[in-house]
């Protein structure tokens, strides 16, 4: 009823204006992403960080140096343009298109580094940004328009106009369009692809930076943690518009802005981001080629086929594994509780990485929403045990819940391929977090679940440092053993066949959805237990305990060890989770370390330390 009355009484014009204003900022983000997708066939996950860099350059110009707005906009565009070009030069070009998912992962690394640098230089707290813009407003119907709205709209239109002139009236612009259509043909006609790519990354960076400044002006504040959300808004806009379609990106941005604005009017602001993800999922499922694609047109499927580099995994001798297990079992005897705790933590990451390496490495569904599976398991066990279920059963319940619900949620993403899987899983991860945040009666909302009972197994307490160490190590070893056994069965070759060539696998009677579901179910069970154990160890969890950063971290571990490689997942987890702890100085700049590790790894050893399985 409240909804109906909201619908009737909503000041539609006001919401439309703010929707269009925000939408034009999304459009600026989306144009950059679409241009890059066009020439490099890549979703630039660092684009959000470029946006944040733009807002901070803008703050420096406007607040610290008191420069006029016009000059500031130009400086922001120049600064982030250079950042964009550098990303192409340092993180994309050296990869030389070695595998199709590599540049995407590399941009994730760049994003982590840029964000951390901003945190270090400007502190992680938001700042005010004011530009001495006059305070008058014009009455339009029952809404108003202020100078800031006009500034944003004008800047966006001007930027789009300049881009149009560049693309259609200059030779380099023509080269960009040619490369977007067929880069091989363009290369043969003498187009310098590297120059085109760098130019496009530069332009995209400039537009993203301007968007960062404008958002800062609109809300009167800038936030160093906004990167990811903005990147996502841009991505949703290009999915609406049709990926490489620049006018489509503008339309997609405006549509998304309007949907968000109306949605907030109807349901409230805490749902703001849910709309973007819901739109994203609906688009991926029903119109993966975008709203503006002509019907019946056959689009080349991006990023199909193998992404796992052709390599043989390193075979570790049985004796060595046995020796390492013995060392691991004896570790608590060293009486170094700090090290024991760090390793317990690393093994839990290892359990999560084990699950991810199965779906992303063995089956080939690169997931950036893996944290959601842990969150499902953690919440299921935490909520059940705080209501009286024994912890031992709670862990199993958490595993089963994550396995079943995770598979059901991920099922729609099974028909997606390549980059779209990454986007889809990312959206799923965020949706799970947002549902946890907003479904207060069940999940306790933003407060989280506290006083979760400590680890114990049917009366036997496991919360001592050593006991929990052995328990988690035992879990890890058991699940490693189970996964190796599965990989050696007919399931192993069936999953790998799907990864290598889904069409050929289907032709030989393999229902890819069914076997992807099996893998997701088992991985969900593993990850759910990992999440549940974590919850009982921490005794407190909330919607942000297992966030995107967590997902990226696990993915980095899996890549480090080698996609699909069981011992690689464990090794990757230990290296990434434990190493920074031992070097206190590095621990401060953890994300810098992760980002750099990701980029260097993809550049120099894409098959991971132990090779792909």
């Amino acid at each position, binding site marked *: 009823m409240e909804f109906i009355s909201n619908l009737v009484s909503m000041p539609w014009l006001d919401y439309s204006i703010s929707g269009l204003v925000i939408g034009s900022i999304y459009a600026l983000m989306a144009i950059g992403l679409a241009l890059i997708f066009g020439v490099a066939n890549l979703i630039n996950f660092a684009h959000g960080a470029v946006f944040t860099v733009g807002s901070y350059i803008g703050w420096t110009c406007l607040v610290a140096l008191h420069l006029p707005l016009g000059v500031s906009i130009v400086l922001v565009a120049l600064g982030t343009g250079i950042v964009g070009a550098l990303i192409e030069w340092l993180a994309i070009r050296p990869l030389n298109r070695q595998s199709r998912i590599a540049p995407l992962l590399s941009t994730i690394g760049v994003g982590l580094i840029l964000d951390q640098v901003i945190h270090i230089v400007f502190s992680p707290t938001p700042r005010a940004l004011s530009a001495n813009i006059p305070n008058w407003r014009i009455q339009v119907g029952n809404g108003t328009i202020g100078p800031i709205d006009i500034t944003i709209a004008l800047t966006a239109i001007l930027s789009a106009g300049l881009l149009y002139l560049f693309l259609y009236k200059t030779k380099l612009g023509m080269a960009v369009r040619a490369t977007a259509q067929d880069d091989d043909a363009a290369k043969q006609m003498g187009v310098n692809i590297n120059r085109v790519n760098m130019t496009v990354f530069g332009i995209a960076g400039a537009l993203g930076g301007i968007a960062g400044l404008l958002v800062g002006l609109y809300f009167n504040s800038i936030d160093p943690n906004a990167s990811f959300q903005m990147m996502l808004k841009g991505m949703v806009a290009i999915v609406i518009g049709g990926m490489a379609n620049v006018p489509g990106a503008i339309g997609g941005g405006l549509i998304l802005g309007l949907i968000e604005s109306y949605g907030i009017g109807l349901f409230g602001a805490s749902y703001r981001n849910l709309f973007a993800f819901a739109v994203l999922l609906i688009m991926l499922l029903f119109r993966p080629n975008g709203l503006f694609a002509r019907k019946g047109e*056959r689009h080349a499927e991006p990023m199909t086929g193998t992404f796992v580099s052709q390599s043989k995994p390193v075979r570790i001798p049985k004796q060595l594994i046995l020796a390492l297990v013995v060392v691991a079992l004896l570790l608590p005897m060293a009486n170094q509780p700090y090290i024991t705790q760090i390793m317990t933590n690393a093994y839990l990451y290892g359990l999560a990485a084990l699950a991810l390496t199965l779906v992303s490495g063995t089956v080939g569904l690169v997931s950036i929403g893996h944290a959601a599976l842990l969150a499902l398991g953690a919440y299921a066990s935490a909520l059940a045990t705080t209501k009286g279920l024994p912890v031992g059963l709670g862990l199993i319940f958490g595993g089963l819940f994550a396995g079943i619900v995770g598979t059901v949620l991920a099922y729609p993403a099974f028909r997606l391929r390549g980059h779209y899987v990454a986007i889809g899983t990312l959206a799923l991860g965020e949706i799970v977090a947002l549902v946890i945040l907003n479904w207060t009666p069940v999940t306790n909302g933003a407060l989280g679940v506290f006083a979760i009972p400590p680890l114990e197994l049917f009366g036997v307490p496991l919360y001592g440092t050593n006991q929990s160490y052995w328990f988690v190590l035992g879990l890890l070893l058991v699940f490693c053993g189970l996964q190796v056994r*599965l990989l050696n069965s007919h*399931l192993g070759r069936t999953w790998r066949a799907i990864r290598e060539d889904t069409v050929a696998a289907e*032709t*030989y009677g393999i229902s890819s959805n069914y076997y992807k579901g099996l893998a997701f179910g088992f991985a969900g069970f593993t990850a759910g237990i990992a999440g549940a154990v974590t919850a009982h160890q921490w005794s407190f969890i909330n919607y942000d305990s297992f966030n995107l950063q967590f997902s990226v971290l696990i993915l980095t571990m899996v890549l480090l060890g080698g996609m699909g490689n069981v011992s690689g997942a464990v090794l990757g987890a230990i290296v990434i989770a434990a190493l920074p702890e031992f070097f206190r100085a590095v621990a401060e700049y953890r994300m810098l370390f992760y980002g750099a590790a990701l980029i260097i790894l993809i550049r120099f050893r894409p098959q991971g330390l132990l090779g792909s399985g």
Partner: protein
Amino acid sequence: MSDQPILTATGITRRFGGITAVDQVNLHVHEGEFLSVIGPNGAGKTTLFNLISGQDRMNGGTVTLDGRDITNMRPHKMAEIGVARTFQHGRVFGNLTVMDNVLVGCHTRMKAARSSVPVVAPVLEILKALIRPASVRAEEEAMRAEAREIIATFGERLTPRIDNPTYSLSYANRRRVEIARALALHPRILILDEPTAGMNESETAEMQEIIAGLKAEGRTILLIEHKLNMVMQLSDRVMAMDNGRVISEGKPYEVRNDPKVIEAYLGHSTIGGGRPASGDPDEGSAVGVARTRCDAPVAGQFTLAGGSQ
């Protein structure tokens, strides 16, 4: 050969945008029959096979297998009922060994390892893979033994490389793996899409021998091939396509000598002046030359075109 065709396709049509790639094609194969489809590049042969084997969905028409309607059935269901195909450009699973590639072909026949119990099938399949009861182990062993046998039919080509990943194999060997994988399915119908594309003369001759062996076993085979000598020697019946339509059908020599077929290969009288400059169409013209060449049993292969699309 029985009277009732095993596979019947009626009025198959597939349009891409404004182009009709396959236009009202009828096709039937009898049990144990060897049917070849020939035609110039872009005639719609591969598209037709894609429609029959479920890789693509048709805009119109019906396909039946043993009287059962299988129109637009999903590819993995097609495999379950015994339709196996190879791909024009070879699609092996690069990071899998030769053995594993062939074992994937056995997938539809795995009864013990898989489960068809509703609802709990996924759980059962995982549990069986973990516990490996005797029946599952015995089945896996039987499949492996059979896979080794199939691989051995390719002589010393594949057997020494049985545990090598297929990305390390030569192009010709990958095509052989593909055929081995298809045979492992125990197909009711075997669909071969240019099995000798990209092979040299001796490799082609070897492949032809293997295919002749399959025919001698009484298998039902559908073949797309450009090497006409091979088509003439192997086929019971030949169908020629051009522009998405069937232009000729019948005994190999009938089709080969059909003027419509020769015109399709050597130029269209309607498009771009396919007729040669010299006045007389039979003396010294391209068509005449073609006829002589087709008739002459040249030692090598007369390849009209290499690889379509």
